[in-house]
Structures are given as structure tokens and as C-alpha cells.
């Protein structure tokens, strides 16, 4: 059935959104910054994966790991150079800086390698098809879904079962108190960026494998949509980003399925505006009042 097919497409798309959204939500949770450049880290991951596979002849997993590692370092660099000096600045200043960094990465990439797109080879992952409920599922989809799930489970493990994860949670509740407890806040923030960026890098490789075409400005729209997904789930809340991403992917696919495919990009923004009007704290969020 067409519906089931679109549902599966939606979940695959959604898991990509979810991986990117996790980075947004973790960074916002810890320093209350919307990291506009996050979508561009996703783009960098896609390109690193591309060059690893075509240039260095790597297979899927090594390429994935390389992309994650590079993006991880990249994310920390961005944080240290551009965001750290603005830790105590106004939110507007930080947001503007993030926008500036994002544009710098995009147009720097174009300047360096040109704006032409690249195509991921189609044979990196084994491609057999399964037929379930009248829908065709490619093994690629399953692979991608599987990888995303593994990464998300890994993230949950890190956040809840490791020391650094505990530090991240502490700093996001109250940075001052965490500092007084002996937690190195700077390093914790950098670790957050590192992990979030690694996930975005993975999403980039996965995107390339699934959708084949990549280009320097590819991060803008998925980045914005992933941010919407994070807000949908409740910004700052990790399970929220996962659910939000999957939900958004499914909604988008269904909208496309019922015939409004030209509007699919607009779906995310309509969802955003609805959420901000009716439930700004998101699906899983709590209302935090400003102290008067």
C-alpha cells in the first residue's frame, strides 16, 4: 500500500531529522543557544563521507566513523572559536553569531570546492528488497534505520550511564551549581558539541547514501527542519528530539503522499508555528516561567 510505503519513507527521513535534532537539543539544553551552524556540520559530514568512500575507498562503517570523528572535532572548534566568547552575551548576539558561522561554512565550502553537487555511489550498501504489507522496503532503508537506532541507543547510554553524561545533565540544569560541584563546565560543553556534531555527521553520511545527491547548501533546509523537530519534541529534551524527528519525517512523507508534495518543505514551518502558538514547550516539555 502506498500509505505503508510512505510511512516507511517517513521513518527513514525522520531518523535523519532525529539524528540532527539531537545535536540541536543537546546544545540548546546546555547553553541555550540555537546552533544555526549545526545543519552545516551535517553537510560537512556528508562530504567527508563522500570523499572517504570515493577518494579513500572506504566502506560504510569506516567512512561513517571518519565522518563522525571529523565533525566532532569541527563542532568543538566552532564552539571554542565562535560561541565560547559569547557565553555571557545577549541571546540575540549569540544567535546572530551562529547565523554568521553557518553562512561562513556554507560559502567557504563553495569558495573552496565550488557549488556543484556530488553523488554518492549507489552500491555502498547491499541492496535487496523485502516485500511486507504490500510495500517495498529496501535493505538500505533497514540498514539506515538500524544505524540510527544504534546511535540513539548509544547516546542514551552515554547521557544516562557515564560520568560525562551526568555532567552534561548537571550543567544543563544549573551551570553554576555544576561548576561548584567541581565539574569542568567548559569541557562538558565541548563534549556536548562533540557528541551532537558526531551525530549530525553520521546523519550526513546516511543522507548521502539514501538520497545520493549532496551539495554545499544541503544543510540549510534539513537543519531548519531538524530544529523544528527538536522544538516539536521539546527543546532541550533528548527523547523529545528523537520523537520529534520521527514524527516530522512521517508527517512530511504523508503530506507528500496525499498529493501536496510541492508543499512538503512548508510542512515543517507550519508545524513550527502551530507548536509555538499552542504548545511552545513541545510534546515533552515543561513550562518554565520567567522570574519577575
Amino acid at each position, binding site marked *: 500500500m502506498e500509505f505503508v510505503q510512505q510511512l516507511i519513507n517517513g521513518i527513514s527521513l525522520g531518523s535523519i531529522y532525529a539524528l540532527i535534532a539531537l545535536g540541536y537539543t543537546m546544545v540548546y539544553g546546555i547553553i541555550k543557544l540555537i546552533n544555526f551552524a549545526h545543519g552545516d556540520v551535517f553537510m560537512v559530514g556528508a562530504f567527508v563521507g563522500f570523499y572517504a568512500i570515493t577518494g579513500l575507498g572506504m566502506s560504510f562503517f569506516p567512512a561513517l566513523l571518519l565522518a563522525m570523528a571529523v565533525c566532532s572535532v569541527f563542532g568543538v572548534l566552532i564552539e571554542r572559536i565562535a560561541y565560547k566568547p559569547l557565553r555571557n552575551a545577549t541571546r540575540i548576539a549569540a*544567535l*546572530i*553569531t551562529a547565523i554568521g558561522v553557518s553562512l561562513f561554512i556554507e560559502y567557504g565550502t563553495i569558495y573552496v570546492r565550488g557549488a556543484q553537487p556530488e553523488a554518492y555511489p549507489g552500491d555502498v550498501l547491499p541492496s535487496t528488497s523485502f516485500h511486507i504489507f504490500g510495500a517495498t522496503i529496501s535493505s538500505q532503508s533497514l540498514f539506515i534505520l538500524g544505524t540510527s537506532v544504534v546511535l540513539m541507543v548509544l547516546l542514551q547510554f552515554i547521557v544516562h550511564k557515564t560520568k560525562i553524561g551526568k555532567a552534561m545533565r548537571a550543567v544543563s540544569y544549573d551551570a553554576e551549581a555544576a561548576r561548584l560541584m567541581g565539574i569542568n563546565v567548559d569541557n562538558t560543553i565541548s563534549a556536548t558539541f562533540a557528541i551532537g556534531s558526531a551525530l549530525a555527521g553520521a546523519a550526513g553520511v546516511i543522507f548521502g547514501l539514501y538520497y545520493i545527491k549532496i551539495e554545499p547548501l544541503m544543510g540549510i533546509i534539513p537543519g531548519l527542519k531538524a530544529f523544528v523537530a527538536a522544538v516539536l519534541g521539546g527543546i532541550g529534551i533528548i527523547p523529545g528530539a528523537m520523537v520529534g524527528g520521527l514524527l516530522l519525517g512521517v508527517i512530511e512523507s504523508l503530506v507528500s503522499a496525499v498529493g501536496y508534495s510541492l508543499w512538503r518543505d512548508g510542512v515543517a514551518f507550519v508545524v513550527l508555528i502551530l507548536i509555538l*502558538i499552542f504548545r511552545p514547550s513541545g510534546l515533552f516539555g515543561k513550562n518554565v516561567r520567567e522570574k519577575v
Partner: protein
Amino acid sequence: MANINRKKGFWLSIVLALAVYVVGQVLISGEILNSFYINTLFFMAINIILAVSLHLIIGITGQFSIGHAGFLAVGAYASAIFTMKLQMPFGVALLVGGLAAAVAGLIIGIPSLRLKGDYLAIATLGFGEIVRIFLLNVDYVGGASGMQVSHLTDWTWVFACLLVTIIVIVNFTNSTHGRACISIRENEIAADAMGINTTYYKVAAFVIGSFFAGIAGGLYAHNFYIIQPTNFGFLKSFDILIFVVLGGLGSMSGAVIAAILLTIVSAFLQDYPETRMIIYSLVLVVMMIYRPKGLMGTKEITQFFTKKRQGIEGGESDGKHTAA
């Protein structure tokens, strides 16, 4: 005495405005400037209108709106429809463009009341994108290939609109209404507590700001022969945002100066769009780190020209100690 100073300033401004107009007209009709310079001049004026209109929303009222290109688009397309499809005169089309954008401003302004800071920014960004995507999918206005528009913009129109925009916003700012908006920017909770209807003024700022963005849209549409949805994406919003931020959040003269400077930079880097973006983004980041106040902070250029007398019993004001 203050009255005489104010009257002097008033007549001086009139003379100055007239001079600029005449010089511009002479340079253009006398064909002293080639089309590149004329275009740049028009672009400059349009950018100043955009910068000043966004300044009212962000700089004065503190509402972080980064989808301004959406209002520009509404104005551009609305006015283009009136000239190209409905054969209306240019002046009427411009006004319609402004009004249509003002309605959009009203639509955006109302939900914005519930949103603050980052959330408002993202919502306005989303609005801008929705407008663009909407236009992309409507065949009546040409969809992705856009709409052809006759060249009706000339120096008189551009200058007149620029003058009106500046006068309106300066007059608004230097009044109790401007102070009300600034108080919202400074401390919204205190503004509420002092009897300011913050809802009314936030929406008013959006409506007035978007009206002028719409006018700019009309001028823009009728200057470049064709308008397409891609002209009105986030990059355009960002271009306008950088005028206001670079100039100094809260300074109208800063926004004007930044608009002039960046239009010139943009014109000369026309053939190197990536370089332009790299320079813009670097300037933005560096400025936010080292001089977040921008060029002028919240000061106005008039403050450098008039002597402010403070603290003397019966002392005079320069008449302009609020803003602009």
C-alpha cells in the same frame, strides 16, 4: 531657545533633503551616472528603507524578527500584481504593496506576542520561508520562474518613499509611542507594570515596519524587471538583518550608514557572491565577539552634532535625547 534650535534643525533637514534630491535627479537625467551607479543608488535607497523598517521592529521594540524578506516579498508581489495584472498606476500599486505587507505584519505580530527571543526569531524565520514556498507554488504569479515586471521605479519615487519612511519612523520614535516601544525592548515586564499596552505596541511596530518593507518591495519589484521567490529567501532577510546589527541595535542612523556601506560593498562584489558572503559572515561574527554594539550602539548621529547640556537647573535639552 530649544524651540529655535529645533526649528533650525527642521529647516536644515528640508534643505538637505531637497539638495540630495536635486543632485540625484541631475546626475541621473544628465546621464552623468551610468546604469550601474544608478542601480546601486536605487538599491541603496531601497536598502535604507528596509534597514529602517527592520530597525523599528528589532532595534526600537526589541522584537527579534529575522523573516523580513517575507514582508518584502509580499509587497513586491502584491504591487506587481496590481501593475502587471490589474493595470493600476504605480503609486496605487506601491500603496497596495505596503498595505498587503502590513496585513502580513499584523498576522505575524499577533502570534509573536506569545513568543520571546530565540523562539520569536525562529517563528519569523519560518514565516519568511512559508511566504517563499507559497509563492513558489502559485502559478498566477509565475511560480518558480517568477514574474516579469515593468521598470517603473525612478529617482523621484525612490527618494519620496525614502523620505516618507525616515520621517515617519523618526517621528514615531521621538514621541511617547517610541518611548513605549523602547521600554518594551528594555524591560517588557516593567513596561507592562507602568501601564504600557505592550501588545498594542508590539503589533504596531510589526505593522509599521512591515508596511515600509512592503513599499520597498514595490520599488524593488519595479526596478529589476523580474521577481522570483528565490530573491526573497532567508539570505535576503539576513542581508537586511546585518544592516541593523552592524549599525548598532537601536540606532537608526547606524542602520542607514550600514545600509549605505554594505550596498556599496555588495555592488562592487557583485561578481563574487561567495566572497561577499564570506566577508559578511566573518564581519558579523567578529563584530559580535568584539563589538556587539555595532557601529553606533544606541546612539544617533545627531548626538554628535548637537551639544547636550546636562544637569543645569533650567538647562536646555537638545530636543532629541531619546533616540534618533
